[in-house]
């Protein structure tokens, strides 16, 4: 009898401790009448701006934000979110990783159409976001853009000074960019004049500025357009033959990831990146450096290619959201305010002078005099360039992206010629499009 009582007590303790583990969040949330749940990559929890933003949201709306962090990098985040949503998760708000995955996630039925709710909130999203609003073929939009990332050229002033080369200024062309990079490249010192990621859109960047469509009119893959071939060959030429930047093989060998250039900045003179890169360049704590950076506009790709590349971030509401009303309040607030905290550029169709000051002021301040508000405004926004998306979009976009990256990597590593690479891309992408449909 005694043994039975002891075993029962032990089991009770075990069971109650299991429930207690999951109960912490609920008790914290119970202080609030209304809550909203959101999911982000776990690193966000260490970001002061993210926590301040949520605290301000809570103060303003009385809605408590419960963050469900997802460990891992962006790819792991995407896969885990997909699994979660496929399994019927009731998390409220999801920050998607942008246009590449958006359409596929919409077609999988993950998100709620926002048209009625947003318009009922008295917002005209078409006027506010213009072409940045991600309207799908069915006329609905399932997310709101909360930031845009604009490309530009960041450069290492110390390398320019040492080589006696004047800092780059816009407007300029890719030929001038290559010419400048050649002057700066010094193999003896291990200095490369340029750095471009072994990734998209860098592997054919000027083609994207020329706004060559990724799809033909019938919806099939258009990567056999000669312009893609021309610039894929150009990328390999400036890397492997001219040697002004590390080749794909070298980057693979270095196991280089996204922050490689920050670690190797002392030997990389110019790098085309989006404005997200300022967060890294300004983070002396995480990426200490003993050189100052400058910013120049993206070079033009010639006639018809006077465009800058722009990438967007979206915030969406889960179709199975447990708190749809609060989710809408949070999503609208994020779309309007996150850029102010994150130090980014809002996705509004037009930016007021006040917005510009706010967007670039925090970046300039964090740079401690390396760049000014005017530098950023003139070289990112007021460049005289139009804008095109830096992303492949569509229901098979994520596969399209992967296939192009894989095939062009193989081409750059001399495993196949360009015609085979293009032919493989077209065959595989068309297969992916057919499957997605």
């Amino acid at each position, binding site marked *: 009898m005694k043994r039975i009582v002891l075993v029962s007590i032990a089991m009770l303790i075990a069971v109650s401790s299991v429930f207690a583990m999951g109960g912490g969040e609920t008790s914290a949330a119970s202080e609030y009448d209304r809550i909203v749940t959101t999911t982000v990559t776990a690193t966000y929890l260490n970001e002061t701006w993210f926590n301040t933003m949520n605290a301000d949201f809570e103060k303003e709306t009385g809605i408590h934000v419960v963050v469900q962090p997802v460990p891992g990098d962006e*790819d792991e985040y*995407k*896969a*885990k979110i*997909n*699994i979660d*949503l*496929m399994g*019927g998760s009731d998390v409220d708000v999801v920050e998607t990783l942008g246009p590449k995955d958006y359409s*596929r*996630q919409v*077609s*999988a*039925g*993950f998100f709620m159409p926002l048209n009625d709710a947003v318009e009922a909130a008295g917002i005209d999203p078409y006027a506010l976001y213009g072409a940045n609003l991600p309207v799908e073929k069915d006329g609905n939009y399932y997310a709101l853009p909360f930031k845009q990332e604009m490309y530009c050229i960041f450069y290492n002033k110390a390398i320019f000074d040492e080589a006696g080369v004047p800092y780059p200024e816009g407007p300029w062309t890719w030929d001038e960019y290559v010419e400048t990079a050649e002057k700066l490249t010094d193999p003896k010192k291990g200095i490369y004049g340029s750095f471009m990621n072994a990734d998209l859109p860098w592997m054919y960047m000027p083609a994207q500025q020329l706004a060559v469509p990724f799809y033909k009119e019938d919806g099939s893959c258009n990567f056999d357009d000669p312009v893609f071939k021309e610039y894929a060959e150009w990328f390999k030429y400036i890397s492997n033959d001219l040697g002004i930047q590390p080749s*794909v*093989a070298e980057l*693979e*060998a*270095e*196991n280089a990831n996204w922050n490689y250039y920050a670690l190797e900045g002392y030997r990389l003179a110019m790098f085309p990146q989006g404005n997200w890169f300022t967060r890294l360049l300004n983070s002396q704590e995480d990426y200490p450096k003993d050189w100052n950076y400058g910013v120049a506009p993206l070079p033009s790709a010639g006639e018809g290619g006077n465009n800058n590349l722009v990438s967007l971030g979206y915030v969406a509401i889960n*179709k*199975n959201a447990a708190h749809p009303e609060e989710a809408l309040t949070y999503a609208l607030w994020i779309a309007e305010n996150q850029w102010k905290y994150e130090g980014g550029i809002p996705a509004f169709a037009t930016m007021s002078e006040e917005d510009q000051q706010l967007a670039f002021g925090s970046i300039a301040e964090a740079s401690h005099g390396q760049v000014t508000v005017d530098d950023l405004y003139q070289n990112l926004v007021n460049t005289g360039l139009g804008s095109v998306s830096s992303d492949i979009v569509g229901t*098979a976009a*994520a*596969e399209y992206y*992967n296939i192009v990256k*894989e*095939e062009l*990597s*193989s081409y750059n*590593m001399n*495993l196949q010629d360009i015609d085979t690479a293009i032919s493989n891309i077209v*065959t*595989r992408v068309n*297969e*992916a499009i057919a*499957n*997605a449909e």
Partner: protein
Amino acid sequence: MKSVEAAAGYLLIAPFMLMFAVFKLYPMLYGIAVGFWDRNSEMKLLDTTFVGLSNYITVLKSASFWEAFAHSIVFSVIYIVFLMVFGFLAAVLLNRKFWGRTAVRTCFYIPYVTNMIAVGIVFKYLLNPVRGPVNAIFRLFGASGPGWLSSPVMALPTAAVIAGWAALAFHIITCLAALQDIPADMYEVADIEGAGFWQKLRYIVLPYLTPTLFMLLTITLINSFRNYTAIAGLTGGGPGTSSKVVSVLIYDDAFNFLAFSRASAEGVIFTIFIIIVNRLFTKARSIWESRN
């Protein structure tokens, strides 16, 4: 009395059977069913369209699948050969008495209890062609050293060998146990007859160990196809697609591209292949056993 015993037996296996049904059997059957439907959205399976063998035909026509399939075979062959040869040789050496044997045995066992992702991180550092210590040794001799995990030719074999190294302890332990079952007088007789090391290995050790080696071969064959963690942790399937195996393809299709039905068909086709290979192997083994 018998029925009470039977009831007790069922009661004892019930927790396992329940867990097995919930966490293994149901997902497996559901996974197979998904391949016959067009379930690439959050809709419930039976609300989606039944497409019969369409996903299977798509997969069988896909060049990417066959490329990943070929990579899986290459990975398995290297993994199996490495484990069988080095597992056996290491066990023979560790069966001999020498100073520090326990410490050496422990060293061999450590990788087996180490997480494969951690192994991947360490090897990625060790084998980095620019900063890694392995290629630094090559440079001391004036050679640049290969791109172990970054060269399209080397990535897959290197990953297979590292995965084999991490699993080596199980082979060593099993072979060691079998070696210790060999009667000592066999060696004594061999010594009297003047047999050397290789003769003892050929005429005593190998015949005694053959059933164990067959058992190990079967397990290794199956494990060689469970290679997702090794490839994901070491190469991610790259460079390009040079080390993309079927398990990585399935993961990408399902969780990155939301093509669950196609991923299911890929999984089922590959499982059928593994079952066929395993059956052929079992048949060959029984033929060998009947002849000996």
